C-alpha cells in the first residue's frame, strides 16, 4: 500500500450509513420471515452475506483502482465472454438462461456485468482529453454498453439489461454531453418506445399492461402492485409495529423479504419509518456524490458516479414499483432486500468507492 493510504482513510461516515441501512434491512427480513418455517433464519443468512460483503469491500478498497482500470479491456472481454457462455451453456431456470454453474455454485454473470461496465466506462471516459463529448466518442460508448445490454436482454433479463443504461447515461452526462445531443437522445428514446414494445416478450408485455391497469388479473403483477400499495397505505403514519403487519404476515405482499421488502417495512414502520430509511439511503447517495467530487482524478470520480447511478436507479425503480408507479420487475433494493449475490456485488462496488476515497490525496 503506498504511503498515506491506510484503512483509517476509509470513508467511515459512508460505512456507518451503509451499516445502518443494512441493519434496517436485516430487521425487516427478520420480520418478514420469522413466522414462516420455510424461510427460517433468513436474517442470519443475510447477516452472513453482509459480513462477507464487508470483507470483500475491504479487500477491494486495498486495491489501487488504477490497476483495475488498466485491466479494463480484459475485464470487458471476459465479461462479454461470460455473457456469451451463459447464453450457450447457462442453466435454464423458469425459461431464462441467467446462471452459469461453476463448481456447483450457480453464478449470475449479468450481476458482474454491471460492475465491469462501471470500470470500463470509467476507464474510457476518464481518458478523454476534452471538456465536451464528440459524436464519435458517444458512438463508442453506445457500442461498449450496447453489446452487453443486448446479450443480457437475450437471456432474457430486460430488467438487469436496463440497469446498464443509467450507468452509461450518468457517465456520458458527466463527461461533457452537449445539451443539444442530450435533447436529441431523449427524443430518439421516446420514438423508439413503440419499437421496443414489439421486441418485448409476451410475459413482459403482460406486465406492462397489468401495470397500466391494476386489478386486471387477480394473481398477476397488477394484483401484486395492488397488494403492495395496500400494505404501504395501511401502515399509515406510525406503522402497525414490527411483526404485526397483516399484509406482510399473512403473505399478501409478494416476495416480501426481497423485491417488496420496502412494502413490508412501510406497513410495519409507517411513514415515520420510511422517512428514516429513505433519509439514510439518500444520505448514502449524496455521500457518494461527495466522494466523486473529492476523487483524485476523473476516472476515480467516474467509478464513484457509476456506483451512484446504479444504486439510484435501483432505488427509483424498486420503490417506484412498491408505490405502484413502475411495472413489477425483479429489481431489488441493494442493502435492504434479501439476496446473496446482490449484497456481495453491492459491497464490491462500495469497495471501489472506498478505494477511490482512500487515494484522494495521492498525487499520481
Amino acid at each position: 500500500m503506498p504511503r498515506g493510504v491506510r484503512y483509517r482513510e476509509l470513508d467511515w461516515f459512508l460505512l456507518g450509513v451503509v451499516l445502518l441501512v443494512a441493519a434496517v434491512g436485516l430487521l425487516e427480513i427478520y420480520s418478514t420471515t420469522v413466522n414462516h418455517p420455510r424461510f427460517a433464519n433468513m436474517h442470519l443468512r443475510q447477516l452472513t452475506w453482509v459480513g462477507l460483503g464487508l470483507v470483500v469491500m475491504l479487500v477491494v478498497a486495498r486495491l489501487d483502482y488504477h490497476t483495475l482500470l488498466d485491466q479494463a479491456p480484459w475485464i470487458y472481454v471476459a465479461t462479454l465472454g461470460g455473457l456469451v457462455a451463459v447464453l450457450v451453456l447457462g442453466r435454464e431456470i423458469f425459461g431464462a438462461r441467467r446462471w452459469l454453474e461453476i463448481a456447483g455454485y450457480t453464478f449470475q454473470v449479468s450481476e458482474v456485468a454491471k460492475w465491469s461496465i462501471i470500470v470500463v466506462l470509467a476507464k474510457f471516459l476518464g481518458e478523454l482529453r476534452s471538456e465536451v463529448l464528440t459524436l464519435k466518442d458517444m458512438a463508442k460508448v453506445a457500442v461498449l454498453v450496447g453489446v452487453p445490454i443486448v446479450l443480457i436482454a437475450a437471456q432474457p433479463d430486460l430488467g438487469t439489461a436496463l440497469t446498464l443504461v443509467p450507468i452509461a447515461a450518468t457517465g456520458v452526462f458527466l463527461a461533457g454531453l452537449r445539451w443539444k445531443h442530450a435533447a436529441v437522445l431523449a427524443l430518439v428514446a421516446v420514438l423508439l418506445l413503440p419499437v421496443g414494445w414489439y421486441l418485448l416478450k409476451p410475459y413482459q408485455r403482460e406486465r406492462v399492461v397489468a401495470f397500466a391497469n391494476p386489478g386486471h388479473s387477480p394473481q398477476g403483477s397488477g394484483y401484486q402492485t395492488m397488494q403492495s400499495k395496500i400494505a404501504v397505505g395501511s401502515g399509515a403514519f406510525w406503522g402497525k409495529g414490527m411483526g404485526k403487519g397483516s399484509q406482510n404476515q399473512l403473505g399478501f405482499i409478494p416476495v416480501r423479504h426481497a423485491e417488496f421488502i420496502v412494502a413490508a417495512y412501510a406497513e410495519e414502520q409507517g411513514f415515520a419509518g420510511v422517512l428514516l430509511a429513505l433519509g439514510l439511503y439518500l444520505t448514502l447517495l449524496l455521500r457518494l456524490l461527495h466522494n466523486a467530487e473529492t476523487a483524485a482524478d476523473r476516472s476515480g470520480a467516474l467509478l464513484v458516479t457509476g456506483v451512484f447511478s446504479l444504486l439510484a436507479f435501483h432505488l427509483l425503480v424498486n420503490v417506484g414499483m412498491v408505490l405502484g408507479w413502475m411495472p413489477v420487475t425483479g429489481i431489488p433494493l441493494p442493502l435492504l432486500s434479501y439476496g446473496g449475490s446482490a449484497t456481495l456485488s453491492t459491497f464490491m462496488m462500495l469497495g471501489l468507492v472506498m478505494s477511490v476515497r482512500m487515494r484522494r490525496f495521492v498525487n499520481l
Partner: protein
Amino acid sequence: MDLHAEPRLPSSRLALLRYGIAAVGVLLLVGFWQLQVVRSDYYAELAERNRIRTLPLMAPRGLIQDREGRTLVDHVPTFSVILIREHIGGIQDALPAIARGLNLEPAALKARLEEFKEAPPYQPIVLKNPATLADIAFIEAHRIDLPELELLLMYRRRYPPGGFGAHLFGYVGEATPEEIAAESYQLGELVGKMGLERHYNHILMGANGERRVIVDSRGKEVDKLDQKKPVPGRPIRLTLDYDVQLAAEQALAGRQGAVVALDPRTGDILAMVSHPGFDPTLFATRIPPEQWRALTEDPAKPLLNRVIQAQLAPGSVFKIVVATAALEEGLFDRPFSVYCPGWANHYGRTFRCWVPQGHGLVNPHRAIVESCDVFFYQVGRQLGIERISRYARQFGLGSATGVDLPAEAGGLVPSPEWKQRVQKQPWYDGETISVAIGQGPIMVTPLQLAYAAGGIASSGVFARPRLLLEPATPPQVRRVSLKPESVTFLTDALWGVVNENGTGTAARLPEIDVAGKTGTAQLVGFDTLRRVGGRPTRTLVENAWFVGLAPRRNPEIVVVVLLEHGEHGAAAAPLARDVIKAYYDKKNSAGARQLAGLPSAAPPEKN
C-alpha cells in the same frame, strides 16, 4: 491550465446530480405521504377486507312430519361452491377459468354475478349446489390462483321420491327480488316457493349465522375472529297421515286427477294427492330453464295442485247441496215425486236425464240414490237460483276454504246479480236447470266439495280444512243450522248410493258405514272459462267425481276423488273406497293392538 492534465468532472453537473437525487427522494416521500397519510384509511379498509373473510353458517330448514311424527321432508348436508367477492382485484378475468373448472355456462355465470351486483360484498354467491367431487378437487387445486372460490356446507332439501306429496310440500328456491322487497329476505336465500314450504316458510326457515375468520393470501384460515350461530328452522307436524296419503297415491295410480281425504270433525287433511305431479328435488337447486318450461307448458299442468286449484263443474255431486236446500226449505215435507221419462222440458228447452230410458216415478230418496237428473231439474226450478246459490255459498262452495296452503282457488257459485255484474246479461231461467245438476256456470274445487259434504253430514259443523297439527292452533269451526231430519234423510240417501242399487256401489266396504255420491261432469265450457279468466284447454270432456263419507253421520273421514277426462262417476268410487279402507284398517289394527296390550305401531301423540 495544464493541457496534459485530465479535465476534472464539471462540478456544475455533479451539483445537478445532487439536486436530481434530492428531487427523487422528495418525490418518493410524496408518494409515501399520499398512500400512508392522505389515503391511509382507504388502504386500511382494503387490508382488513384482505385478511378478514365472512363465511355464512347455513341454517337447516325445519323438518316436515306427518301426524305421527314420521319425517316426510328432511335435508342432507351438501357442499356448494361459493364465490367470495371480498377479494381485492377484479374477478372478470378469472371467469372463463371458473366456468371451465366448474363446468358452468360462461354466460350463465356472468348473469349470476350481475344478479348480485348490488348485494353487499361480504355476501358470497352460490355458484353451484351441490358441488361434485370434481368441483371440490378443482377448488382445492386452485386455492392459490382462485382464492375467491370456497366450499360451503349447505343443507339440501330432500323430498320423498316419485313426486310423493309434491304439491303439498311445494319446493324451495332462491328468493326473487319481489320476495326480497316484500319479506326482507336476503339475496340468494332459500325460501319456500310453493305449498307448505311457502305457507309455513316463517316457521321452517331458520336464520343463517356467520363466521369471521382471518385468512392468509391463499384463503387458508389461520385464525377465528367471532361467530354468530345459525338458528335452525323449526319443524312442522302435519295433519297428514302417511298411510292414508300412500293409499291415496296408490289409488290414483298416476291417472290425471286428485284425491283429498279429511276428518270433518277437526278439518284435518289426512291425504292430498294431485296428478300429474313433479319432483320437488328438481327445484332444490336452480332448475334448468328447459325443465321449467317443460313443467309450465305441459297441457296436463303438473304444477297445478288440483285439490285446491282445479275449478270444475261438480256435476251430480252438487245434488247433495240441492237436496239439502230442498229439505231445509221444506220442499219434501209434502209427498214429492217426479216422473222421469228420460227427459224433461223446462223453459222451452229439452233437458236429458243420464239414463236415456228414464227412472220412472222417483221419490227424493231414490232420486239421490240413482242420481235422477229429471227429478233435480224440477227441484231446481222450484228452489230457484237465488236459494240454490245461498245454500251453496253457506256450505263453503264458490270461495276459498282458507286451508293453510298458498294460492287456493275460489271457484264460482253463480247468481243473477253475479251474471249482471260480470257478463252484463240477465239470468236465464234455463241456466238454473243446469246448475241444479251441477252443470253450467258453477265451479268448485275438490277441497270445497269435501268441506261442504263433511259439514252437511256433521249436521252443519264446518271445520276449516287444515294441514298443520303442530305448532298447534285450535280448529276453526263454523256452524250452519240444519234440521236434524234433513241431515238424517240426506245421509241415509247417500248411504243408499253406495249400499243400495245406487251409482256408487263400487265404494262399498264390508262392515264399514260408507256413504257417498257420484258425479259426472262436463268440463267447463269455453265461455265459462273465459268469463273467469281461465285458459281453455279441452272442451266437453267429462270428469268423474266421487264424494265418500264414513260413517254416514258425523263422519270421521270424507274423501273426494276427481278423475279427469273421459271417466264416469262410478269409476271414481273405488278410489275413495281404497282410501277409506286404508283409514279403517289402520284404525282397527291400532285398536286391536291396544286391546292386546301391545304398543301402538305409531309413536304416541304429544299431550
